[in-house]
């Protein structure tokens, strides 16, 4: 799937229609994610110059699956009544609640469907195909295009979930999906079943891109008394501590295969890149390079690491293989250079931050260090993230920066080819360290908007913002690759 981004916003010539000093809520139009509706559409139109002919699509049942066509489409309306109990087992109630909450949440946050409010549902909800009356769902008030329903029951020491996805406008053959899952009757297993079924639906309805309901986030938390690396499910559940260095540990980056975590930690010899094996649940050996070593980044094929090191003077970008051998420096100019990130699609370019011209700016270059291109034109720009489709960078940017200048740090989206950008966060606070989800639809980042640094998530168009962490200070989130 490719995004056809056709927008003319803050261009490099400075004709900036997205003046963040006025803090207007500008919702950019990204085909395949969402179309602003109602009043927001009007206000967006008055500021954006788009190819207006593609804004309105006649029908959506098939079109919005082809999200690469540049069509601005409404998301499919999906009704998700609570799954019903399949048996009279007393364990059903608690597990059903876990399932229903998790399932609803996964679909609601997916960015590919619009969930019909439960207040519009008919009184009788189905738990089995025989109980479905399609026209009750396709007609007003629900006005749904799709229906997800099913049942959950505990029997014989196992929990079984049956789930269906129906096209309620197709009364002849409505079934799109029918699945059955079985596992031990625990909360964790039930959450996993909900994630799996939600991902099936999202995969089907989202243009063939896998859902993220089973993905993980790695981040830094100080709630244990020291900054350590922690992990959690993508929806904020199951937060748990990974490292126990008892020092300051920063910048966790999970390997593409999910088995190893690279991070930077203050050891007796200074700041070192350390490698933690999640399979073995301990540090594994990795060379000490000398100097200050920061911000490791994995290439998409898992064979290389880029990072910043001051081992030869000031901080430059280095590349080594996954075991720390074959070290080579790829930047040579005036530093400090830091925060490299690979092109996830090609593995052939690296974006990074350099203070060579004064305040830090974001650059791209080939993986051998040639052809450096400056991407940002002013202000203070850091923390680049590369989108899974290879086309976009996210970054944290204070466009007007300097002593006495107002201006918070916000998350921006930039089209690499044109260097045109869109501001995604607007509501104040310091927003930093954006990281892309593997579906290319979601971004996780750190924000101080609630009063202290926490991890937040949003869709790549800046909508559906919600907070994931609440305890201690939580920073530098990194999304798993699948």
């Amino acid at each position: 799937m490719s995004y056809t981004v056709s927008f003319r916003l803050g261009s490099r010539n400075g004709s900036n229609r997205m003046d963040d000093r006025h803090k207007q809520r500008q919702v950019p139009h990204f085909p395949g994610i969402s179309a602003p509706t109602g009043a927001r559409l009007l206000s967006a139109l008055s500021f954006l110059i788009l190819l207006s002919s593609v804004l309105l699509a006649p029908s959506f049942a098939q079109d919005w699956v082809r999200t690469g066509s540049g069509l601005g489409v409404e998301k499919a309306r999906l009704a998700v009544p609570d799954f019903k109990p399949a048996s009279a087992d007393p364990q059903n109630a608690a597990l059903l609640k876990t399932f229903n909450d998790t399932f609803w949440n996964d679909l609601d946050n997916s960015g590919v469907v619009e969930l019909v409010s439960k207040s519009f549902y008919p009184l009788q909800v189905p738990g089995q195909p025989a109980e479905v009356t399609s026209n009750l769902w396709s007609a007003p008030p629900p006005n749904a295009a799709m229906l997800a329903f099913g049942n959950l029951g505990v029997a014989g020491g196992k929990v079984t979930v049956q789930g269906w996805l129906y096209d309620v406008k197709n009364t002849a053959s409505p079934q799109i999906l029918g699945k059955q899952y079985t596992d031990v009757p625990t909360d964790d297993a039930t959450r996993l079943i909900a994630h799996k079924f939600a991902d099936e639906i999202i995969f089907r309805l989202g243009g063939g891109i896998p859902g993220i309901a089973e993905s993980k986030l790695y981040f830094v938390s100080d709630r244990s008394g020291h900054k350590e690396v922690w992990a959690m499910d993508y929806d904020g559940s199951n937060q748990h501590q990974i490292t126990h260095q008892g020092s300051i540990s920063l910048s966790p980056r999970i390997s593409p295969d999910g088995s190893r975590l690279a991070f930077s930690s203050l050891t007796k010899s200074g700041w070192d890149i350390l490698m933690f094996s999640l399979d073995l649940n301990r540090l594994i050996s990795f060379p000490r390079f000398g100097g200050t070593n920061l911000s490791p980044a994995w290439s998409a094929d898992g064979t290389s690491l880029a990072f910043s090191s001051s081992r030869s003077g000031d901080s430059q970008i280095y590349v080594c293989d996954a075991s720390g051998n074959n070290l080579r420096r790829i930047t040579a100019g005036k530093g400090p250079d830091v925060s490299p990130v690979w092109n996830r699609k090609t593995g052939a370019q690296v974006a990074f931050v350099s203070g060579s011209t004064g305040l830090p700016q974001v650059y791209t270059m080939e993986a051998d260090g040639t052809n450096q291109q400056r991407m940002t034109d002013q202000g203070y720009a850091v923390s680049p993230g590369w989108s899974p489709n290879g086309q976009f960078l996210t970054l944290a940017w204070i466009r007007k920066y300097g002593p006495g200048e107002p201006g918070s740090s916000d998350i921006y989206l930039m089209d690499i080819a044109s260097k045109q950008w869109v501001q995604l966060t607007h509501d104040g606070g310091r927003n930093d360290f954006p990281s892309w989800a593997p579906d290319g639809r979601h971004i996780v980042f750190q924000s101080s908007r609630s009063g202290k640094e926490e991890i937040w998530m949003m869709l790549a168009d800046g909508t559906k913002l919600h907070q994931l962490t609440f305890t201690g200070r939580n920073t530098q989130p990194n999304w798993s690759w699948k």
Partner: protein
Amino acid sequence: MKRNNVKNIDLKPQTLKTLATVTALGAVLMLGACHKKAAPPPPPPPPPAASPTAAISVSPDTIQPGQSATLTWQTSNATDVSIDGIGAVQPSGSQSVNPTDSTTYHLVAKGSGGTQEASTRLTVTQPPPPTQAATPSPTDEDLFGRNVQDVYFDYDKSNIRGDQQTSVQGDAQFLNQHPNISFTIEGHCDDRGSTEYNLALGDQRASSVKSALTGAGVNASRIKTISYGKEKPFCLEDNEACWQQNRRGHFVYQK
């Protein structure tokens, strides 16, 4: 937590108390059963004349010359009581004494029942010699702390600015005079800006100060550098005064 099918009985505190009481009652009943009555005693003989008692103490028991102490004595069944060095005294009483040397006070109490003696010792110590106004020699660490100034930086900069040159020169001079001292330079940043970039900037600041010192003759082998970025601020306020405090190269004596 491992489950086990082992049944166990709790000995609750109530049960234990009851057991103890029952045991005690049982013991008392048993003793009562063994008790026998004794035969009445013969009439006592007439008492003789009582012998005198005597006691003497001094408080405090150690004084310096010129100070006084209180001597206290008590006697009974005595008609003639005297203390050596004082003379005859009341049977019981107290008196202030201030001898120049250590003294043993010896009391004799005589009565119809006999004689009793008691004594106590008052120690007079010589005062300690006057202490000299001692100036302990300062340690290297003290001198380091007093003489080596931190170096402050401009916003997003790591070059040594004009008004910091005197600090740097002064630091170099001291360090050249004390070649046995080793130390660490920490690079710090203010809390605006990003974690990773600030660690790199702090690294530059520490290196910048190190270069200035080695350029002035300080041996590089004495100098370690480390960046703390914005991880260990010196102050937390959100204003320029505090931000400037945090933008520094900070010296730490190496023990």
